[in-house]
């Protein structure tokens, strides 16, 4: 039966009592005493062949390791051994509250939509260390107009390394009345490094627009590309433009077309317009008009005139087919 995790050999629980100071030879020999508040227990030196037992990692270290784990990973970590299971109990409880929060937020799983109950659940989860719950609680506070409270929660999650928290925090800073671009960039960068797609896009935008830093299209393009490769449609659109103008990326018509199509297929309205127009100029009428119809439906007025030109040249049968395709069109999944 494992004992409470403590440092091997440390029996007094006091942190600093047991570092022995020794005198060194030299002219300035001083007797240095251990602070009187501590006990005079010499530290047991452990035999060098003793292997570290990681099942006795301090609970807070284990909890930190699993701090930003998904539910699935948290379960795996809880099953590693008893002491880890115990160490992660607060996090599991936090996850329970997080789940309840989600149910109240969306009104499913047998409960009615109730933002305040959702917030309550998320706050309980946040109090037990779940960064996921912190971020969701922050979102609700933001919706309720309590921006200070939202910011505090985002900050807490961000400080614990949660990329979504970092991203939201940064965006809050950017949208504030007096934007704090320096802080925003710092957090966007961290979240981007951690692979958070939206953060990568926002970071690229700041670099592109020279917000909080000198404009740097090359680095912006690099991050647009990362976000695009992860499926972020707005980044895909921007990547296409970079290739198209040869800004930040080498000029390439082929790559520009490829990325514009990808963005269009994921439902980016302007991309649908651009892609439709490009198909039109390539002579692909049927395909072009479908995209232009989609763009028109989404509000792109510019699409309407070209679309109508094409439609007039089509037979009734073809027009029906176009509408059928547009009606049944589904966007490919895009990361948010």
């Amino acid at each position: 039966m494992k004992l409470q995790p403590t440092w091997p050999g440390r029996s007094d629980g006091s942190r600093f009592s047991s570092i022995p100071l020794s005198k060194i030879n030299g002219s300035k020999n001083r007797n240095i005493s251990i602070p009187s508040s501590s006990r005079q227990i010499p530290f047991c030196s452990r035999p060098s062949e003793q292997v570290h037992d990681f099942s006795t990692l301090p609970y807070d270290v284990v909890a930190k390791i699993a701090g930003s784990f998904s539910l699935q990973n948290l379960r795996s970590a809880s099953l590693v051994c008893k002491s880890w299971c115990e160490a992660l109990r607060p996090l599991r409880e936090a996850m329970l509250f997080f789940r309840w929060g989600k149910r109240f937020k969306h009104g499913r799983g047998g409960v009615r939509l109730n933002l305040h109950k959702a917030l309550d659940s998320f706050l309980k989860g946040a109090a037990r260390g779940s960064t996921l719950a912190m971020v969701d609680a922050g979102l609700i506070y933001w919706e309720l107009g309590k921006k200070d409270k939202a910011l505090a929660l985002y900050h807490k999650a961000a400080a614990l390394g949660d990329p979504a928290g970092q991203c939201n925090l940064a965006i809050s800073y950017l949208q504030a009345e007096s934007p704090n671009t320096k802080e925003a960039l710092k957090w966007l960068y961290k979240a981007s490094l951690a692979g958070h797609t939206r953060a990568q896009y926002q970071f690229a935008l700041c670099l592109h627009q020279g917000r909080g830093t000198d404009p740097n299209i090359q680095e912006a393009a690099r991050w647009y590309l990362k976000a695009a490769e992860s499926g972020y449609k707005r980044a895909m659109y921007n990547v296409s433009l970079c290739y198209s103008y040869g800004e930040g990326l080498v000029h390439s018509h082929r790559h520009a077309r490829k990325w514009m199509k990808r963005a269009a297929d994921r439902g980016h309205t302007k991309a649908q317009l651009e892609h439709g127009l490009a198909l039109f100029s390539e002579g692909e009428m049927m395909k072009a008009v479908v995209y232009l119809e989609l763009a028109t439906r989404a509000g792109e007025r510019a699409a309407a005139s070209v679309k109508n030109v094409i439609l007039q040249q089509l037979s009734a049968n073809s027009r029906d087919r176009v509408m059928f395709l547009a009606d049944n069109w589904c966007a490919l999944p895009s990361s948010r």
Partner: protein
Amino acid sequence: MADDGVNTKVEAVSKATTETIELRTEDGGVFDVDKPVAMEFLILKSFYEDEGRVFDKTSIRLPNVKQLELSKVIEYCTRALEFGAKSAAAAGDKDAERMVRQEREGFEAEFVDELSNEMLKELILAVNFLDIKEMLDFLIRSVANRIRNRSVAYVRQFFDIENDFTPQEEDQIHQENAWAFEGVDAD
């Protein structure tokens, strides 16, 4: 090794702040560490601050830390302080700030890449003992990345931990929050 039990007052020598502190590891390593770096080890820092004294060259034995780990810790903390200073110096110059950022990014990636799993674990224990917050967070993130999305068996093997659950106990954990462990609803 242990103190001689005498509470001798140390006379503060005016302006005689130590430039380096000698740290000795349990396996006989001796390191002369710059004071600013050593003060990143909170376990040492509060000890110094407790007394409010100025020590001349002092030798401190760190029983929980081995040479290999301490040298890595010193390397990281020294570079971290350098980056901090560079960052501060570059404040206002966007290009320079970005360069420091990228340099730090590169250093940290390389630092963690070179660490074996064993070394990573040992460093966590050492850094947790020495109480170096920034480095601990960095190492914890690195470990989390290595075991994220891995099976229970992998995590056990990674940490060299024996499964001390009985099958019934394992089942119980599964049952306990079974419904909570079904897939999280997408937002």
